[in-house]
């Protein structure tokens, strides 16, 4: 990705697809809760544009009509049309309506409607200075114990392999695989400084704060290969914390699990 | 030349002199400063699993003496101000000297407390309890030193103003008194928060 694109790439405003999900403005949205967010952003921008154009016309009109010129006297007593107060009340009501009927429900569902852990894929994402460690529970669905004393160059999350549950745990760096149309719960934690787990195409962002674990859920409704980004300054290589975010078909996801298990069994010989 | 009104006479509408209004504004910002530190103390205490009982780590009798010393110094400075109101500059100097002596006692006790802790290997890095203890009592101590400098100035060279402008000088002593009472007030809350709980 290092070739400099032309000043304005063709897909700047083209409709977003899995092949070219990015451009100027909102990227492709493949998450179920993303639609509400995009709708909110669009409504707000049309509302702001309307206000700006409305007041802009009034502004330019005044600049022309009331410019100082010979024979023109300021007239402080010129009565004002009563539009402003009606406008202000309307704006205030619209804002409250947006907050109560669209913003709060979308935010509420994003923060509170967690799926049941039994029928969702649960992963643990531990951020560290300049990489995302992804820890899958494996077939048994249970996470093995981790111990910070075991942390070293390769085992960066200190997974205790001889713990019963840890036998089948899969652990990847900068590589998050999720099956399409399946709810995922991610426990986000950090080892050193504050990072922020950000999936642009999923409209998901959650700070990884050391000392506490934040929970976030999402569900992808389209397959493809996208990016994990870090959205909080975390040191001099903050810009390099790019991860692969792959939404697989169920078969591809199984293939990924099998392949990882094979690598695991070879490593354990 | 510049003439700044209400330096010694209160403003007809607000009823306060410039200095008194100014010192209260400064104390308002100090309330916010110590407020932030107290809220840090609360969050550290509720967040930590093994917050030690104050009396086990700190010397309560010594601190009680300190509290009484500071309360007494609060009384002596208000009596110093009262004696100025009764035109007795001599008695003012006695009370102000007492205030300085008592605050010196407070600092000396604080010095022994700190060195005692350092010998036992208790440093700000030992635990968040000692970290917030040293930070808050240390910052309070710096405020005591600041107050002592001002009080010493008012007792010494500053009192030359008594002959030129007694009202303005009394106002200054009152403001130094207000600041000192505030420092005592902060200690009244620091003492139980660390030593008794």
């Amino acid at each position, binding site marked *: 990705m290092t070739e400099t694109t032309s000043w304005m790439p063709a897909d700047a405003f083209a409709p977003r697809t899995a092949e070219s999900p990015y451009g100027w403005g909102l990227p492709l949205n493949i998450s179920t809760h993303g639609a509400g967010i995009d709708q909110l952003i669009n409504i707000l921008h049309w509302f702001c544009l309307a206000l700006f154009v409305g007041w802009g016309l009034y502004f330019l009109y005044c600049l022309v009509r009331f410019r100082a010129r010979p024979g023109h006297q300021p007239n402080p007593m010129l009565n004002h049309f009563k539009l402003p107060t009606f406008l202000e009340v309307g704006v205030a009501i619209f804002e409250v309506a947006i907050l109560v009927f669209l913003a709060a429900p979308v935010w509420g569902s994003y923060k509170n409607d967690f799926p049941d852990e039994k029928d969702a894929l649960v992963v643990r994402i531990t951020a560290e200075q300049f990489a995302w460690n992804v820890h899958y529970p494996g077939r048994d669905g249970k996470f093995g114990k981790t111990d910070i004393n075991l942390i070293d160059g390769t085992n960066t999350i200190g997974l205790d392999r001889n713990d019963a549950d840890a036998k089948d745990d899969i652990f990847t760096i900068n590589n998050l695989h999720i099956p399409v149309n399946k709810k995922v719960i991610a426990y986000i934690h950090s080892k050193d400084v504050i990072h922020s787990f950000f999936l642009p195409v999923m409209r998901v962002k959650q700070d990884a704060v050391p000392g506490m674990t934040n929970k976030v859920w999402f569900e992808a409704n389209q397959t493809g290969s996208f990016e994990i980004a870090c959205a909080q300054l975390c040191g001099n290589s903050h810009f390099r914390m790019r991860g692969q975010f792959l939404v697989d078909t169920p078969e591809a996801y199984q293939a990924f699990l099998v392949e990882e298990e094979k690598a695991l069994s070879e490593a354990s010989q | 030349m510049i003439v700044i009104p209400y330096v010694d006479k209160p403003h007809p509408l607000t009823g306060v002199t410039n200095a008194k209004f100014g010192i209260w504004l400064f104390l308002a910002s100090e309330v916010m400063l110590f407020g932030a530190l107290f809220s840090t103390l609360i*969050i550290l205490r509720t967040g930590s699993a093994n917050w030690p009982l104050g009396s086990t780590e700190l010397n309560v009798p010594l601190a009680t003496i300190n509290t009484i010393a500071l309360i007494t110094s609060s009384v002596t400075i208000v009596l110093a101000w009262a004696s100025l109101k009764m*035109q007795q500059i001599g008695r003012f100097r006695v009370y102000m000297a007492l205030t300085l002596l008592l605050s010196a006692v407070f600092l000396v006790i604080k010095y022994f407390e700190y060195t005692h802790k350092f010998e036992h290997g208790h440093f700000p890095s030992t635990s968040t309890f000692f970290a917030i203890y040293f930070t808050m009592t240390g910052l309070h101590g710096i405020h005591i030193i600041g107050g002592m400098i001002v009080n010493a100035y008012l007792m010494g060279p500053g009192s030359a103003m008594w002959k030129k402008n007694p009202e303005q000088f009394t106002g200054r002593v009152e403001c130094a008194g207000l600041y000192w009472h505030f420092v005592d007030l902060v200690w009244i809350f620091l003492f*139980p928060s660390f030593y008794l709980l």
Partner: protein
Amino acid sequence: MAAAHGHMGVHIKAYIGVFMALIFLTVVTVGVSYLHFSHGMAIAVAMFVATVKGGLVAAVFMHLNNEKKVIYWVLGLTAVLFLLLISIPMMLLCH
């Protein structure tokens, strides 16, 4: 001069009275701490005594019992923001 004396005399009695009260309350709060109340009760009692002592110092020593409106307005605004500042721990707990 006499009037000043008389007037101040009343004040000085008040200061000595408050001084005694503060000493007494200090002894009380230290005494209570040796009784080792339950955690919540100990905090409530200690803070109550500290607030009474602080109130005495503020009202009598700092003359807030009859101060001017402009000072009350400043302190009122500061009190509101102080409570907001002290509510930060509660925000962090229900994070």
